[in-house]
Every structure is written in C-alpha cells, then in structure tokens.
C-alpha cells in the first residue's frame, strides 16, 4: 500500500471486496466488449482472407507480343484460371509499352515479367525449372503467394522460389555459376509457378547475358525487354471494359498489331459481395447490443449508488466535495468497464484461437479466415475498450450526478 491513500486504491478496494455487486456490471461490459471485438475480428479475418485470395487471383489483363497469342493456342493458360505468370516464350517487347498502357484509366497496378530460360536441374527440382525476371517493387502476382512476407525488398542476388524448388529460406542455389539466396518461398499454386525461380529484373538481364543461358535459337535478351506487362484493375472497375480500353489504346499506339491484350474471363464480385455483407450485419448486431446494454448498465449503476448512499454520505462528512463524489462514481464505473472489457476481449481472443485452430471459422464464414496482425488486433481491442469505457461513463452520469447532489446528512442516516 502506498504512503498516501489514493482514489484508485479506494475504487479497486470497493470493487474487490464487493464482487457480487460488481459481477453483473463486469459481465455486461465483458459481453459488450466481446461483441464489438468479435465483430471487428471476424470482419477483419474474413476480409483478410478474401483480400489475400483476391491478391492471389493474379492479373486482370496481360499485354503481350502478338506472337504470344499464337503460341498460346492449345497450350496457353486457361482463362478461367488466375494469371500469376505468363507462359515461357521467346516473344518479347520493350517495357516502355507501360507508358502507353498507363494512359488507360481504371488500372491500379502494372508489373513486367521476363522469361529467361528453363533448366533441367534435378538439384533444384525433379521437373523443368523456369527462370523469370520480375520487378519486386511493382509485382502483384507473385509476392501475394509468399509463404511469409519478405522482411525487406528483394535485393540483388536474392530469389523467390516456387513451392517445388528445393532449398530452405536463406539457403543458396547456383545457376550457371551464379549464386543466389532464397529470400522467399511460395505456397503451392498447382501450376508451373511451383517450378519457377523469380529473380529481380536486373539480375535476370545479367543472367541472360551469360553465354548459353538463352538458347541460341532464341533472340538475345536486351535490357528493357519483357515478355508481358501484367495489370490489375482498380477495385470495382469492369475488367472487360478496361481490357477494351487497353486494346484501343494499344491499337492506336501500335497500328502494326504486334501487341495484344489478354483479359481475365471470370469475376470475383460474388465472393467479395458476400464478404462485404458480413460487416453490415455485424455492425447492426453490435449497435443493438450497445443500445440494449446502455440502459441496463445505467440501472445497475443507479442501484449500486442507491445501495451506497450511506458510504457516499460518510465520504462527504469527511470532506469529499460534490465533484469528487461525481468523479468517484464515474471512475468506479470506468474501472469496471476496463475489467469487463479486458475480460471480454481476452475471452474472445481465446475463443477465436481455439475455433480457428479447429477450422470452424473457415467453414462458418466460407472463406479462408486470415488471423489479423497483432497491430490490427490491438487496434480492435482498443476500439472495443474505448466503446465500453464510453458506455461505462455515459451510463453512470446520472447516478453520479444524483450521488453528488445528495444531502450528506440524509445519506448518512439512511440504512
């Protein structure tokens, strides 16, 4: 105990030694906090899952050399599948085409890809290994598949390895005498990406310059050459419309028709719309719980204040001013709110941890639940705590006012 009595000690003692009296209030606060936190947690987790899924859906459009389209016939990517990377081809174009495509509205991201070569190296994989160059700064199709986000941008000499490529994180592999460090590994994609190694574009040009890397039958790779520009549309933009615009722009800039555009032929809207419906429902439930709890807690607070009239009278007889009594009642309610809030949030986190481990959240939400980051969880907990503290303060305003306005002599004489 401190050398001097303080308000917090007094409030905590009042709560600690009257558990029955305060349990109902704490439970109410815990319920509200759990409700608000759960709503936010579920929304964030579901949205995170959907966003991760969307981010892994690849490009909405791909700009390629016209010959690539011919090459695709019969062997290219299925347009119902996500476009994560283009197929290996020797048909290239200059990356400055980005400037032309960039004029089209509705495009959020653009990133080039360059196929270098394919290797039959059992040490790296039992299957043929494709080597691709990407721009790690603008890439939006490969990095979303990383098992763990990179803790730094891909540096020279570092690679991202497909799921079937041998080698652990930070281990080194050698390609034609060049040593590279595996900075990231990808989740399985069930496509040729699993047997692909991705280098920075500058490393790709360096590697391509080595004699024998690029088949002699293929044109040499010069700096600035790319096989494709992958594009992601602005959210809610109609991909077909954007594709049409890109086609028009390219046709205007390259009338020789040596550049083509591939558009994605499936839509993500039904999934995202389903998930976006969840927050509205959860917010309505949270608002209802808060509104229902407010008068309930106010009644409990009024009952507690009534029960403590003599105590309040005694405090006044000792010299407690009216504002001190007002503060004490409010502060006690706020402490109860904090205790209840922390309990509710803690219980929710524990429950979600168990449910997520059992896979219940994935099946209930029908999306891959992505656990929010610690920072996001802290923010949600802070919001839930802020709401319950606000409710605690607001609901005890009237009881606090009534207590502070009591006549001390009458209050003392009440049983």
């Amino acid at each position, binding site marked *: 105990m401190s050398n*001097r009595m*303080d308000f917090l000690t*007094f409030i905590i003692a009042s709560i600690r030694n009257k558990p029955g009296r305060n349990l109902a209030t704490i439970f109410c606060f815990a319920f509200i906090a759990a409700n608000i936190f759960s709503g936010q947690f579920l929304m964030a987790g579901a949205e995170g899952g959907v966003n991760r899924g969307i981010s892994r859906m690849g490009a909405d459009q791909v700009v390629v050399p016209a010959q690539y389209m011919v090459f695709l016939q019969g062997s290219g990517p299925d347009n119902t599948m996500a476009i994560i990377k283009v197929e290996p081809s020797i048909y290239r174009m200059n990356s400055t085409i980005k400037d032309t495509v960039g004029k089209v509205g509705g495009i959020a991201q653009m990133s080039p890809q360059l196929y270098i070569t394919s290797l039959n190296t059992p040490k790296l994989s039992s299957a043929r290994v494709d080597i691709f160059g990407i721009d790690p700064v603008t890439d939006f199709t490969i990095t979303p598949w990383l098992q763990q986000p990179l803790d730094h941008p891909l540096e020279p000499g570092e690679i991202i390895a497909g799921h079937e490529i041998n080698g652990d994180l930070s281990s080194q592999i050698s390609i034609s005498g060049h040593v590279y460090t595996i900075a990231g590994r990808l989740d399985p994609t069930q496509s040729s990406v699993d047997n692909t190694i991705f280098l920075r574009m500058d490393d790709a040009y360096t590697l391509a310059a080595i004699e024998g890397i690029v088949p002699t039958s293929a044109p040499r790779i010069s700096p600035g050459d790319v096989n494709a520009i992958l594009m992601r549309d602005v959210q809610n933009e109609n991909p077909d419309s954007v594709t049409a615009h890109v086609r028009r722009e390219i046709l205007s800039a390259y009338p020789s028709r040596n550049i083509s555009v591939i558009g994605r032929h499936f839509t993500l809207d039904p999934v995202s719309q389903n998930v976006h419906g969840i927050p509205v429902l959860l917010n309505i439930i949270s608002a209802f719980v808060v509104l229902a709890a407010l008068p309930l807690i106010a009644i409990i607070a009024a009952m507690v204040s009534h029960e403590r009239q003599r105590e309040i009278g005694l405090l*006044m*007889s*000792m*010299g407690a*001013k009216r504002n001190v009594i007002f503060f004490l009642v409010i502060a006690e309610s706020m402490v109860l709110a904090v205790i209840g809030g922390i309990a509710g949030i803690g219980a929710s986190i524990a429950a979600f941890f168990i449910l997520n481990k059992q896979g219940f959240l994935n099946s209930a939400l029908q999306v891959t639940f992505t656990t929010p980051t610690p920072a996001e969880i802290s923010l949600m907990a802070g919001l839930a705590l802020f709401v319950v503290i606000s409710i605690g303060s607001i609901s005890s305003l009237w009881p606090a006012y009534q207590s502070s306005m009591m*006549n001390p002599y009458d209050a003392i004489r009440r049983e």
Partner: protein
Amino acid sequence: MIKITGVTKSYSTSSSEVRAVDDAYLDVKQGEFILILGRSGSGKSTFLGMLAGLIRPTNGVVRFEEMDISILPEDQIAGLRAKKIGFVFQFSGLIPTITALENVMLPTLFCREGPGCRSRAVDLLKKVGMSDRAGAYPRTLSSGEMKRVAIARALINEPLLLIADEPTGDLDVDTEFEIMELFRQLNHEGTTIVMVTHNPDLVPYATRTYTMNRGKLAERNGPGAFGTGMNGPAFQQESLDLP
C-alpha cells in the same frame, strides 16, 4: 472557535412544521469538551449536523473561526470539514470494503495539504489501541474496535474540532469507559470536542454540559455542576427530560 447564534432548523410535514432545533445558542472555545445530553429525537444530532456544516440551518448563524458556514457554498464547507472537523458517528461509519488502516487514511483523499501519511495513520491506530488490527476489515471488528478506528479516522487530518454523535450509544459499559477515556485524553492534548449523548453518566468527562429538549438547547448550571458525576447531588436534582 465556534459561535452558534439563534440557530433554528425546521422541517415541514404535510400537516405542520417541526422545529428540530429551536433558537439555539452555543459558544465553544478552544480546548473545551462540550457534552450535550438529550433523549432520542430531541434534536441533538440535527444540531451536530449544523455544527459540522452537514445541515444548513433554517435561521441563525453558525460561525466557525469567524466564518459563517451556514451561508458558505457546499464545496467550501466540504473543504472546511476535510481540514478542520473530525466526525465520529453513533454507528461505526467505517467503509466496509477497506481495511482499518485504509479507513483511517481515507480522509486524506480530500485534504491534500493534510498530514495524512501512512505513518500518522499507524500512530493513530496505536493511540486508540488498534495497531494490531490495522489490516482487519470492519466486518471482523467488534463495535468497540470499530469505534476506535472511527476516532482515529476523525483525527487523521488533525482537526481543530472533533464532533461525536453518541459515539458510545451501542457499546457495553467497559468499552464505553475505554472510549470516553480516549476522548478525555484527546481533550487533554488540546482537541476541542463537542459530543452528544443520552447517557448522563458521561457528564463528568465534560468541561461544560448542555441539555437538548424538544429542540431547545440549555446549559446546565455552568462548569463543575456535574463534577461528581451521575450520583452527584446536583445531577440528581436536575429535572432533565431524559430517559
């Protein structure tokens, strides 16, 4: 120190007006031990309430160190109570959720410049013979022990005036004696005490004694009139309206 002039406290009922205290006069000097005798309902607790600024008089003036506390704003009176007045109630008046020591320290919450430190609370508990029960909660204390703690609490901010409202009303004779001896000691150390009781046996402890009968306050024969206690001839001859 305290001068009460023509103080009246009236309560209106549906049919009539009741005068709990009727035109009372009292002049309390530093170091006095004033005893007010009266039966239940005579108005003595209401009178003490006005003395402590807990009740505002209907008429009259209550001066505490030249300040008219009957017209002071509520917060100023509270400040005065915190710094200069200690109150001991008939019931224990202890807060049940905190220990005896914490109860003693409690008034320091409202009086920042007061001594109010833990060591003083410990000293006071020692003074009232409760140092070994400092960590006990009120529910585990006897009536006498609770009263001792309440007295220690009333003294924590070193008040000029100690007001006691029937502090021995619910105690056995032995405990009552111990508590009154404690009051006597405090008074000898310089604490001014105003106490109400319905027990005429306590008269010998006082330097001056008053009676309160149906709201009327009257001094009984001046200092020393009851010097020989309840068996003294003067007291026996008094026609007090007492139980």
